[in-house]
């Protein structure tokens, strides 16, 4: 088994992309917890999420990569940055880059190269997914359903969707109830009580 591993370390594009994205993940995750300004930590966390989406793309989990970008780098980061904007009174340090054009150019080159490599990771993940197991075979897979025969799915996204709605339908419905309760709880926690509005109008925020 070891010789197979050492053989595959050479000249494999997905392995080189894994090294790149792993390095990005470690550096930006360390930057999240060691930066003094919370806004810089949030931006570093966005890069961590995008690099994780790249690793999911290398491994062929395209649905998870898409959900990583949509849910984590989109929704949750918008929530965190919005709360930081509500709470933090510090000045934004990112506007300093306008005074240093070389630093701005280097940052832009890094960002564009990063997203180019993310794109190439998402495209090389598909032809390298050569495992012929459940959900990853290039041929169709049939889910047996009692009474109505079988349903045929093909590809990663369709397989994850079929597994969600056929094997895990009860946890899916419970997740929907949990999200409803969480949103209601967040609204109740974050709203001001009506009797306190007159007392705290001039002191809070």
């Amino acid at each position, binding site marked *: 088994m070891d010789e197979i*591993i050492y053989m*595959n370390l050479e000249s*494999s594009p*997905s392995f080189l992309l894994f090294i790149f994205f792993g390095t990005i*993940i470690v550096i930006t995750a360390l930057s999240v*917890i060691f930066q003094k300004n919370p806004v810089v930590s949030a931006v570093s966390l966005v890069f961590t*999420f995008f690099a994780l989406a790249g690793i999911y793309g290398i*491994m062929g*989990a395209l649905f998870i990569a898409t959900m990583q970008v949509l849910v984590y780098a989109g929704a949750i980061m918008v929530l965190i940055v919005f709360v930081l904007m509500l*709470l933090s009174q510090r000045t934004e340090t990112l506007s300093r880059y306008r005074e240093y054009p070389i630093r701005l150019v280097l940052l832009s080159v890094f960002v564009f190269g990063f997203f180019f490599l993310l794109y190439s990771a998402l495209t090389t993940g598909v032809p390298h997914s050569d495992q012929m197991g459940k959900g990853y075979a290039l041929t169709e897979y049939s889910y047996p359903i009692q009474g109505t025969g079988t349903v045929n799915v093909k590809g990663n996204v369709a397989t994850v969707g079929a597994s969600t709605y056929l094997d895990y339908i009860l946890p899916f419905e419970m997740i929907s109830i949990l999200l409803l309760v969480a949103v209601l709880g967040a609204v109740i926690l974050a709203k001001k009580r009506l009797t306190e509005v007159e007392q705290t109008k001039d002191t809070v925020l």
Partner: protein
Amino acid sequence: MNQIVNGIPISYILGLAGILFSIGVLGVLIRRNIVIIFMSVELILNSVNLVFVTFSKALSHISGETIVFFVMAIAAAEAAVGLALVIAIFRHKKSTNVDELQSMRW
């Protein structure tokens, strides 16, 4: 179990997930800003997602990726409730430093 996922040994990916988990735990322990503690919890959840996807690929079974979808939904609910709590605490205490939250100390 397949030891190599698309040309990457799974021990490397699991090592990366362990490093990410350790960084998240370190952030929870050493930081005092409550929003950064939330970001560290997100790092921990992401390392767990990476382990789920890795074993889903190594075992060639799709259930791991389905569970990652559920973990993301749980993380979204946790972020919504947690950040609402942060806003409520900030409105009450005028601070996001967890050292100043001593209301429940005996």
